[in-house]
């Protein structure tokens, strides 16, 4: 998609060029609204369709047909009239819909009548002993390397965790000729029973046949070790081995040059929370999700959230949500055009319902176990400030009530990642220690800038109220 110069004002600003953002920008662009699509990556697609327009991989067979479907979303968006702005890091969003964004080292303050956040998902933190060692990465990270750079894992590769992405990536690795030493499946045995009541809708869903085909293709070709109940990465300066325990095997160890962890994805909430959008704890997905209306409007006037950033729904449902949020924007800005979109919106809502069917089953089946979410002892929780689980538990004993107080006690969450890697662990850890619900503990109070920017970029902004508020709100 051709990139465009940034304007000061847009009818609609869409943030994030994954399936939700691409679909939202396409609808708004086609409706003739002045639409910007900001994205931090050099190419469109988000993480699920990462580098779909620029991947070096020529063979369709490695990544699979679902990946290449993203190309259609990119083509539609390119033809829609929406302005695509890559390499654009949005670091601030105010309630007045003023957006602080850096493009190629220059900061801009822009305004929009409507904002559609499509910031997607990130992988859930996986705090085990040794998870900070070089060579321990997420499965999604290795998948991003495969999609965007044509790199495949080599040496002794161990996959560990739970969730559809782990199995999908295993298949992609095998298709690319990689060898996998073992897949350590951390899904607790009880998950199957808990998923069972949701089986009928799963069997009727689009996910059933795909999932079955995937597992049938992968399982026989892999050494799968099931019901892993404890996991640790070991090594000096880099990962050298993975130590684990299952419900049957007391203790075992396998050599590893690369340990790829994954236990599902969670909404990327930083920008929405910093804008003041109300979030609640989702007991099924074990994360904070924004409170949304059926039109995907948030608690902040003019800001909507589409896709996995609003709660995990998957790529196809995300695109439908992008369209639904965009239809609402068109209705608000160009009411005369609304009647012509009724049919398309009804179709999007039908598709969304179809793609949501079966998700509950997947959530239950792949629900990550408590011991892999709530770290203990000397396991590092905050990777940036190197704060251990034990130190957090001690702070709670001393009267620390929640994540924000914890910063003063330990510096937990105060490093460059701004709590992204520890936030959910901290909430659940404090909740467990105090015996209260995670929703009552809450999350870090997030403030702009949600991504680091240089003082030079800030100083280059025209000095006005918007620029001041973007970085120095209460």
């Amino acid at each position, binding site marked *: 998609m051709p990139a465009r110069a940034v304007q000061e004002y847009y009818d609609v600003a869409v943030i994030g060029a994954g399936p939700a953002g691409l679909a939202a920008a396409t609808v708004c662009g086609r409706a003739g609204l002045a639409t910007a699509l900001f994205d*931090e*990556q*050099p190419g469109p697609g988000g*993480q699920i369709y990462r580098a779909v327009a*620029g991947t*070096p*991989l*020529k*063979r369709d067979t490695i990544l699979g047909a679902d990946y290449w479907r993203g190309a259609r979303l990119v083509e539609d968006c390119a033809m829609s009239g929406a302005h695509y702005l890559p390499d654009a890091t949005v670091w601030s969003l105010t309630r007045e819909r003023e957006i602080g964004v850096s493009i190629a080292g220059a900061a801009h303050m822009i305004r929009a009548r409507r904002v559609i956040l499509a910031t997607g998902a*990130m*992988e859930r933190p996986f705090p085990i002993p040794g*998870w*900070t*060692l*070089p*060579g*321990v*990465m*997420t499965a*999604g*990270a*290795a998948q*991003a*390397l495969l999609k*965007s*750079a*044509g*790199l*495949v*894992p*080599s*040496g002794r*590769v161990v996959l560990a965790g739970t969730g559809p992405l782990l199995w999908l990536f295993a298949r992609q690795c095998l298709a*690319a000729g990689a060898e996998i030493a073992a897949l350590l499946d951390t899904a607790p045995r009880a998950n199957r029973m808990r998923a069972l009541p949701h089986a009928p809708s799963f069997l009727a869903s689009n996910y059933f046949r795909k999932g079955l085909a995937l597992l049938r293709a992968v399982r026989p070709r892999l050494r799968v070790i099931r019901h892993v109940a404890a996991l640790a990465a070991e090594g000096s*300066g*880099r990962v050298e081995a993975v130590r684990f325990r299952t419900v049957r095997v007391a203790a075992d160890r396998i050599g590893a*040059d*690369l340990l790829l962890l994954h236990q599902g994805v969670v909404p*990327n909430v930083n920008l929405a929370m910093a804008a003041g959008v109300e979030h609640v704890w989702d007991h099924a997905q074990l994360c904070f999700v924004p409170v949304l209306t059926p039109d995907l409007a948030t608690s902040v006037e003019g800001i909507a959230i589409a896709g996995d950033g609003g709660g995990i729904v998957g790529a196809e449902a995300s695109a439908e949500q992008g369209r639904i949020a965009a239809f609402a924007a068109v209705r608000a800005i160009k009411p005369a055009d609304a009647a012509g979109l009724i049919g398309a919106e009804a179709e999007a809502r039908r598709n969304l319902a179809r793609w949501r069917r079966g998700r509950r089953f997947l959530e239950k089946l792949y629900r990550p176990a408590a011991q892999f979410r709530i770290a203990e002892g000397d396991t590092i929780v905050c*990777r*940036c*400030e*190197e704060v251990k689980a034990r130190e957090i538990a001690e702070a709670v004993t001393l009267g620390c009530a929640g994540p924000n107080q914890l910063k003063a006690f330990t510096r937990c969450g105060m*490093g*460059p*990642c701004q709590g*992204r*890697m520890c936030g959910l662990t901290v909430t659940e850890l404090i909740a467990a220690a105090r015996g209260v619900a995670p929703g009552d503990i809450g999350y870090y109070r997030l403030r702009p800038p949600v*991504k*680091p920017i240089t003082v030079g970029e800030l100083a280059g902004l025209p000095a006005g109220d918007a620029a001041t508020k973007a970085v120095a709100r209460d």
Partner: protein
Amino acid sequence: MFRRLPDAAATLTVTVDGEPVAARAGDTVAAALLAAGKLRFRDTPVTGAARGPYCMMGVCFDCLVAIDGVGNRQACMVPVANGMAIETQTGARKIER
């Protein structure tokens, strides 16, 4: 450890701590270093522990390196360019960066 698929052959050269490293136009700095067998990108300022890329999508900030003299850049977010000078970050941070 990673290896390049034949589709993703190297096309340019960067330097990593002064040594030449082959990379492909379109690689991020992190991808180029990983393809060259480098897992350790920096030591932490708190305890000096070794770190490398974890998320590859700009959220974990563990892949920080110095690029063309500017410190603490996210290696997973910056595309390589021919002749780019990349330095891993060890020891105390330098104030001029």
